[in-house]
């Protein structure tokens, strides 16, 4: 570590702390956008595929790319800075690993959407697979896009499909190059990176039991399906009846006494 005044050292660490926080925020938002993109991509080719979905995909993708470019610059400049203190470097490397993994996921999803868009063109709507989905991905796209940076939710533009495809090709190759560039410029030893988090993520909320119940209900034999719910309902009805009887009796007692 170079000889540095204490004061300057503090400034340095403060500066890099801020840089770390910035980087972390950017990477978090990239991860969120990648997750949303994946959800949207799973709808492509299904019966809910539409111009709107494609447009949402495009917007999410653009957002992801902008984020990616800014994170790339941010992290590359900091990691190439030789005067970075050790713990900061470790944190940066963690961010870097997360960023590159997210970028790889995004790249695969983009490739898949590209090739699926090839096969399932919206013109021939009979060939879209009936998968049982009913709603589109609008809410997911809204989640992806509604971040402090960008907030315009544009109406779907009827752009030419071929133009769209060539832009997509370009963007895919751009991400490709970005990945390659990153590997060239910054040498992060992946086996030296240690994660902070636990092995098992904590459950986020316990209020998702409804959809769990739906899924587990799915499992059982079709005959039993209504029965478990019926038994619950029967219990409730019985309880309600008991409460009703009790209140009537108490009212009678009050009346006749």
């Amino acid at each position, binding site marked *: 570590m170079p000889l540095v005044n204490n004061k300057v050292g503090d400034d340095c660490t403060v500066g890099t702390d801020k840089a770390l926080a910035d980087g972390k925020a950017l990477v978090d938002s990239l991860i969120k956008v990648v*997750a949303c993109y994946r*959800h949207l991509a799973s709808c492509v080719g299904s019966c809910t595929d539409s111009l709107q979905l494609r447009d949402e995909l495009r917007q999410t993708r653009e957002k992801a790319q902008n984020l990616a470019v800014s994170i790339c610059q941010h992290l590359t400049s900091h990691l190439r800075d030789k005067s970075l203190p050790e713990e900061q470097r470790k944190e940066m490397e963690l961010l870097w690993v997360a960023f590159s993994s997210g970028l790889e996921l995004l790249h695969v999803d983009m490739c898949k959407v590209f090739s699926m868009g090839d096969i399932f063109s919206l013109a021939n709507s009979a060939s879209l*697979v009936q*998968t049982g989905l009913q709603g589109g991905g609008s809410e997911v796209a809204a989640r992806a896009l509604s971040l402090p940076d960008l907030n315009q939710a544009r109406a779907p533009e009827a752009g030419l499909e071929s133009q769209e495809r060539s832009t997509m090709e370009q963007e895919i190759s751009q991400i490709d190059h970005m990945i390659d560039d990153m590997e060239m410029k910054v040498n992060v030893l992946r086996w030296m990176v240690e*994660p902070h988090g636990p092995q098992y993520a904590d459950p986020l909320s316990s209020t998702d039991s409804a959809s769990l119940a739906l899924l587990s209900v799915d499992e059982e034999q079709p005959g039993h399906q209504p029965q478990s719910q019926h038994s619950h309902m029967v219990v409730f009805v019985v309880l309600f009846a008991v409460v009703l009887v009790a209140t009537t009796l108490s009212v009678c007692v009050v009346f006749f006494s």
Partner: protein
Amino acid sequence: MTIRNAIRDHGQRYRPRMACLKKAEKVLLEMQDPKTGVKSQPQRLVITTIPHAISGEDIIAWLADRFQIDSQEARNLGSMLVALGYIYPLQDHKRLVIKPDASLYRFQTPYFWPTQQWPVEDTDYAIYLAKRNIRKKGILELHEQEQYNRLHKWMNHKWDFIVMQAKEQYRAAKERKKPDRVVFDCQERAYWVVHRPPPGTVSAMDYGLERRIDPNADEVTGESLHMIFTQQSIMRPRVKSSVSIGALVKYCATYNSHDPFLSKCLPSNPWLTDDVTYWTLNMPNVEIPTKMRVERWTFSFRELLSDPRGRDDFRLFLKKEFSGENLAFWEGCEDLKWGTAATMREKAEHIYKTFLARGAPRWINIDGKTMEITVKGLKHPHRYVLEAAQTHIYMLMKKDSFGRYMKSPVFKDTLKKAIAPEEHKFTDAQLEQNAKNRRPSLSPIILRQQELEQKAKMAASAPVDITQVMSKLSKQGKEVAPRPPSKN
């Protein structure tokens, strides 16, 4: 433009092409057509209904109708589609078969279709397992638990990312409407049942060995390649079909009675009756061969040489004729060709000194041109340096010695002594007894030791070299000092 794999495969291993995937996709697209495809019905769950469920019997009926096949085959085809992951069952999701009753299935979304281009990533699997764990702790099954731990060990550096991505995907899923969420969960679950099957099940996505060339890469075609191809096809040697077919017919007629599948195996086929007499009678170094074996030697010279007992007999004959050096040279060349690379140099030198050098003790008679080529090649010996000389000697033996061997008293004697075993006629009880008495055969290690002992014994009693014989016969002193008997 080809969309490359995201994960750079530096080991350059490519999954082989699964041609069935494209065909299955076509079938699936036809099946899901709302008008002409399989009849779809809504699936009624507690709070909601989800459309586009299809029943197993409808699928089978549609397939049978479309391809004009019977229902068993339609069922197999349907099960194949399920096993590949194009259709997933809604009940009993771990068994990937089509049940010919009212059990429900649904079409998989194209995002989760099996592809040949993009490998199924462990990162995605880790995210999926983490997501399931987030939803309800402890829901992972044992094998999934093990996989999760293994992935945690190997992808440790990415683990923060995986957990965060799992959380984000979970939150994004919650934004969707409930029935869509259920459908997406079913889809994802089905995808991972196909691509990470629970232990003990067979996966349809097993594709065997990986390839060294990328099947998606464009083939290099060019005019020069086309030229080379056509030139080679012109240069190929040709034979009239009457000739080649005649050769095949002759081969079949000759070997018909010797083939254990086409005719009886005397005394009895050990694989059928569990009686090993056949093998003991036909051991490589048996004293008295069977008649069938001796008959085989008469088919061609190659048969005689390839059978160790036949070769022994031939060697005996040549010893009596004092022309054993040809066979010894041929065997030495075989040894060089098939031996270890470390011993090649000494072997080549030994063979040269023994057989090829001027005034060698067992000098073989090959023509001048071959000798010249061989000697030149021996300056830088390699495995096939003696190939030309070996072929010459082989032809010599075949044209000359083989004929004489067939007429010789040695052969006639062997033929007379050869045994023709009677056919076994086992009753069922005896067959059972044989099966009980099955024993393992001699270990290959012991067999090899026996072979080596045999070789050493033969070398010790090697035939006397020609110079010694001549000196003994003519009782004249030779300028060349008598060399010790050469070892094979």
